[in-house]
């Protein structure tokens, strides 16, 4: 037995950490402790999996429970010198909270561990799995002793029944009932089998238990042997888990030596032994009848049930088959009592469940929580949410037999019944998180490939049906989908489901059915529009950036032009698809960058900044640019609203020869580009230059003219063959709280309009308060700083990562002295003598998940506080005012505007913010293009507004695959920004632009 040590250092040696290099860390640690002559005082132990695979190699130092992550061999000396010798925690190696930025030294302070209840995983990461003594020290084999000494076999079975334990392998059948059937089956020879053929891709809890706590499985199998009257057990392990096989082998040898397996265990007259059987790579062997065939040395083909294995199983004898995690729950049930186990979890799903968190989630690894814990808590609180600022799309549970759960069901409790209600299954507990980069059609194809590959081939529906479905999905993802494909898929699904012999075939259609149920639109996009929104199906797009750009700009080609110093050429490539390169080069939210493949390697290409460089070059070198004009075609189009949507439509329609007139109520053209975005982000000069390009094509822009007020709509309508309404979303919503009529209350859009028109509100020395979290709020706050406000406070009801404003803008605002206060919501605006004096704020917290997968903000049970201020600027949401067109309000309200912008009202089209609500410039440009296409078609044209680009896609220089961070663009220092509206972000130098362009991986070049 080991002697008492002052310090115990646990080194995780689970498969994940071994892959990350923990063996070397252990060796080095052992050497350094030895060099210091401390081996008497400090014990270094290799344990099984602790859970947080992504943080590996991880070590824990007891007695304080200090948790170190991503430890490298070169860090070990510091830990020994600082922590072991001097008692000082090495902070830089501890976990840093992503929310607060604080270093959390103790394991128990970290959300990942704090919210877990570990039953099956109780010893994983706590003991050395290769030393039976450590298992015994943690109450190991006590349950077996208790069963043999104090309980009758039937009492053991009753305890397992009372605990309400259900099979953790997937089907969820009552474990106690299984044991009961086997115990009641006649015959002297019976078997106990552990199903460790953990085939579900994405699940690795069985592996971790076998590697981290193999004795718990052996003990449980022996207990079952006693309860049902079996003397022999088999563990069937997949060959892909060599370490599990090795550690299990060691455990069996030790258990035999210690008399826990073998003849006359504990002197109670009960004999039991266990053998290992290694699988050979067949997913279907996870099915119990196939598994038994495989143990018998045959092809692992399932057979029909009944008879069930509990009655007629291995070698035709009664056999209990349970999965690894189920076995691991047995000893605690006997020791702590079935009531304790049943008190965890839900009414029908008792106890805890281990989940393997993987995919697009920050904290990948193994976790164990009470059954019924909401999915959102598992993924966001324990898992830390989706990395790299991407959005949660769905979670896939249950492996190839399961399905996907979309964002709107994040409040669903993770238990057997709730998950099957959503069309998926608990399965063995794999939870694979997906973000917007996962294509659901491709995912369905992936699972079908898997099933088709793993089908044993015995029954036709599974063997042939899966193949036919796969062929259909392959066709759809190649862009050859046809109307009727979805219906055919559904028909095949139902056929295979009802006619297959075993669970594999019966559940094979689930991934297709579930993605069809929640993501049918994605299938339709592929089939009808030949478009893969996630940029996965390679045949359907040029490059992820181009595919993601709402305006369809051919990004890799213009980047290549920049690389080759053909800047005018780059500008023209952009301008083909987007009449506002200067604007988008400055304010685009650049969805293209979020999909840039370079982002997987180091950082996404700085596409927006490159566009800005090319755009500024183009605007100042007009002599190098050529424009083509078309002849008038005699047809007239009127456009209401000179914002990005309206002007874009005008640009393309004019080029097709339409006589185009654009009306706007404002004194300047540009809509929100001119009136909603301040000069320090988008200077008016270059903006108006781009508007002038459009006017120079012959587009007539009529300003200071509000249609419906200054001129009647009927007059516009009767003078045109078609009308495009793009009036934006100018109507600010109110908070509906007392005090909104006070002087000093303003809407964000009104405030920005005044500032942009040079009507600066007198706010020098005043305290300004803003409510909201979008770009308008941030822009308004930054204006207030420049106008000399004494202090500027933003109040937002959620947290920073939920703010819709662009991250770069938030950072700039903070650098300029704006304060952002999170988790508060105003309940009243206070005033004296009719003017604002302050605001009452209710503290909020994040509550359940909303439909979009975002957490709702709900009031905290705390009293509100009051802040003083002189001005309140509110911008929470906006909508359009289109009352001047008969029937249009109703069309908008009932979301009846078609994707191509037609409204169902003859000759009337609409798009941009007035349909989308406050959106982005590039989305408005996309709407303008759609309108131009639709109007051209409506008036007898082809609908082709951009000629196809005739260009050879080839490398023009070496592809740089070494890590290289993106070029930063210089910005004005914060102190130089106050009291002026000079543009903050500077344009790249020529050298910087070319250097950055060289980082492009050229995803558009296919070979």
């Amino acid at each position, binding site marked *: 037995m080991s002697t008492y040590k002052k310090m115990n250092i646990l080194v995780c040696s689970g498969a994940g950490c071994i*892959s990350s290099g923990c063996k070397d860390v252990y060796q080095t640690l052992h050497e350094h402790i030895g060099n210091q002559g401390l081996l008497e005082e400090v014990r270094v132990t290799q344990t099984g999996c602790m859970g*947080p695979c992504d943080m590996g190699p991880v070590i824990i130092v007891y007695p304080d429970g200090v948790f170190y992550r991503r430890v490298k061999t070169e860090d070990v000396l510091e830990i020994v010198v600082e922590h072991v010798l001097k008692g000082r925690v090495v902070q830089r190696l501890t976990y840093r909270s992503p929310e607060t930025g604080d270093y959390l030294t103790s394991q128990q302070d970290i959300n990942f561990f704090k919210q877990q209840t570990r039953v099956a995983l109780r010893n994983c990461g706590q003991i050395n799995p290769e030393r039976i003594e450590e298992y015994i020290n943690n109450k190991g084999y006590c349950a077996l002793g208790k069963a043999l000494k104090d309980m009758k076999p039937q009492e053991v079975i009753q305890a397992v029944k009372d605990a309400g334990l259900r099979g953790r392998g997937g089907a969820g059948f009552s474990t106690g009932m299984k044991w009961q059937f086997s115990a009641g089956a006649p015959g002297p020879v019976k078997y106990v089998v552990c199903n460790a053929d953990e085939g579900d891709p994405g699940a*690795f809890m069985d592996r971790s238990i076998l590697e981290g706590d193999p004795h718990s499985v052996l003990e449980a199998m022996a207990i079952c042997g006693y309860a049902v009257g079996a003397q022999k057990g088999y563990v069937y392990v997949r060959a892909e888990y060599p370490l599990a096989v090795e550690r299990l082998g060691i455990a069996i040898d030790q258990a035999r030596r210690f008399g826990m397996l073998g003849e006359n265990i504990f002197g109670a007259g009960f004999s039991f032994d266990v053998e290992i059987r*290694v699988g050979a*790579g067949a997913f279907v062997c996870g099915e119990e009848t196939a598994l038994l065939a495989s143990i018998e040395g045959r092809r692992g083909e399932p057979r029909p049930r009944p008879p069930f294995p509990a009655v007629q199983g291995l070698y035709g004898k009664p056999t209990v088959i349970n999965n690894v995690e189920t076995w691991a729950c047995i000893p605690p049930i006997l020791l702590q009592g079935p009531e304790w186990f049943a008190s965890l979890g839900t009414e029908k799903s008792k106890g805890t469940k281990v989940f393997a968190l993987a995919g697009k989630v920050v904290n990948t690894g*193994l976790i164990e929580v009470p059954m019924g814990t909401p999915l959102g808590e598992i993924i966001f609180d324990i898992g830390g949410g989706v990395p790299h600022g991407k959005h949660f799309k769905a979670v896939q549970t249950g492996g190839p037999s399961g399905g996907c759960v979309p964002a709107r069901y994040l409040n669903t409790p993770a238990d057997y019944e709730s998950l099957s209600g959503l069309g998926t299954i608990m399965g063995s507990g*794999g939870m694979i998180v997906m973000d917007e980069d996962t294509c659901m059609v491709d995912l369905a194809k992936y699972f079908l490939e898997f099933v088709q590959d793993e089908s044993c081939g015995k029954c036709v529906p599974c063997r042939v049906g899966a193949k036919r479905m796969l062929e259909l999905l392959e066709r759809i993802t190649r862009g050859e989908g046809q109307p009727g494909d979805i219906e055919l898929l559904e028909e095949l699904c139902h056929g295979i489901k009802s006619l297959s012999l075993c669970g594999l075939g019966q559940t094979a259609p689930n991934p297709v059915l579930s993605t069809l149920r929640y993501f049918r639109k994605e299938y339709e996009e592929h089939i009808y529009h030949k478009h893969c929104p996630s940029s996965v199906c390679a045949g359907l797009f040029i490059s992820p950036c181009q595919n993601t750009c709402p305006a369809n700009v051919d990004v890799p080609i213009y980047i290549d032009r920049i690389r080759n110093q053909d800047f005018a050429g780059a500008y023209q490539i952009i301008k083909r698809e987007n009449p506002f390169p200067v604007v988008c080069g400055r304010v685009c939210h650049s969805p293209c960058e979020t999909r840039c493949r370079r982002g997987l390697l180091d950082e996404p290409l700085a596409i927006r900044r490159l566009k800005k460089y090319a755009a500024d070059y183009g605007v100042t070198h007009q002599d190098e640019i050529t424009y083509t004009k078309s002849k008038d075609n005699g047809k007239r189009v009127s456009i209401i609203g000179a914002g990005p949507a309206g002007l874009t439509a005008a640009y393309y329609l004019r080029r097709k020869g339409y006589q185009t007139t654009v009306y706007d109520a404002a004194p300047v053209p540009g809509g929100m580009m001119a009136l909603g975005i301040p000069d320090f982000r988008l200077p008016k000069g270059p903006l108006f230059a781009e508007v002038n390009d459009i006017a120079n094509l012959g587009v007539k822009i009529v300003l200071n003219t509000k249609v419906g007020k200054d001129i009647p709509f009927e007059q516009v309508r009767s003078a045109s063959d078609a009308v495009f309404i793009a009036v934006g979303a100018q109507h600010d919503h109110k908070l509906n709280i007392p005090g909104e009529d006070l002087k000093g209350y303003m809407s964000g859009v009104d405030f920005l309009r005044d500032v942009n028109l040079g009507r600066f509100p007198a706010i020098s020395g005043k305290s300004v308060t803003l409510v909201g979290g979008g770009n308008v709020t941030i822009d308004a706050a930054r204006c207030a700083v420049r106008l000399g406000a004494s202090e500027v406070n933003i109040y937002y009801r959620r947290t920073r990562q939920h703010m819709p404003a662009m991250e770069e803008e938030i950072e700039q605002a903070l650098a300029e002295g704006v304060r952002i206060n999170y988790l508060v919501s105003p309940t009243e605006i206070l005033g004296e003598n009719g003017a604002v004096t302050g605001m009452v704020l209710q503290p909020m917290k994040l509550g359940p998940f909303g439909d979009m997968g975002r957490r709702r903000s709900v009031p905290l049970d705390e009293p509100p506080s009051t802040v003083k201020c002189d001005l309140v600027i509110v911008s929470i949401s906006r909508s359009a005012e289109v009352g001047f067109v008969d029937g249009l309000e109703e069309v908008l309200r009932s979301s009846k505007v078609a994707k191509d912008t037609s409204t169902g009202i003859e000759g009337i089209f609409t798009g941009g913010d007035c349909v989308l609500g406050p959106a982005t410039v590039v989305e408005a440009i996309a709407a303008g293009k759609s309108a131009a296409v639709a109007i051209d078609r409506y008036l007898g044209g082809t609908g082709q507004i951009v000629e196809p680009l005739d260009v050879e896609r080839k490398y023009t220089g070496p592809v740089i695959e070494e890590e290289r961070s993106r070029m930063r663009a210089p910005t004005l220092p914060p102190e130089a920004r106050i009291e002026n509206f000079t543009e903050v972000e500077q344009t790249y130098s020529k050298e910087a632009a070319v250097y950055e362009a060289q980082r492009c991986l050229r995803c558009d070049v296919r*070979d």
Partner: protein
Amino acid sequence: MEHACICNGDAGAKLNTMFAQYQGQPDGLIQVLHGIQETYGYLPRELLTRVARELEVSSGEISGVITFYSLFTLKPKGKHQVSVCKGTACYVRGSTQVLGRLEKELKIKPGDTTDDGLFSVEVVRCLGACGLGPVLTVNDKVFARLKPEKLPGVLAKFTQVK
């Protein structure tokens, strides 16, 4: 005679022990095939008749089992076995691109061996290292969080020491 060459030496001794252990036990077939493949890297056809004789199973049954299980192979493998995980977690994190690049670098498809006999490539369904995807293994060494661009570097580690 025909298999005298491969049944000699240490390997032969190991085989003899194994055959003794499973003599006349058809249910030991899968374990025996594992033992042979561990020794030779594949299942030499000339040994299978001995398996049939020793375990008392028909050749047809042996063939059925070998073709059923994906781990068994009748073809010799390359010196370095590259296994690309296509479990769901690895798939979601980009294993398709990793495999694509590997095929391009080695100019072979899964299941094949390079002309110089240095590398074989296969696709495996989940190595259980889901927290670290995308993952591939070369022999027993695991390469985690792979990116397609890193593959030339990974392969170079094995081409330099031939």
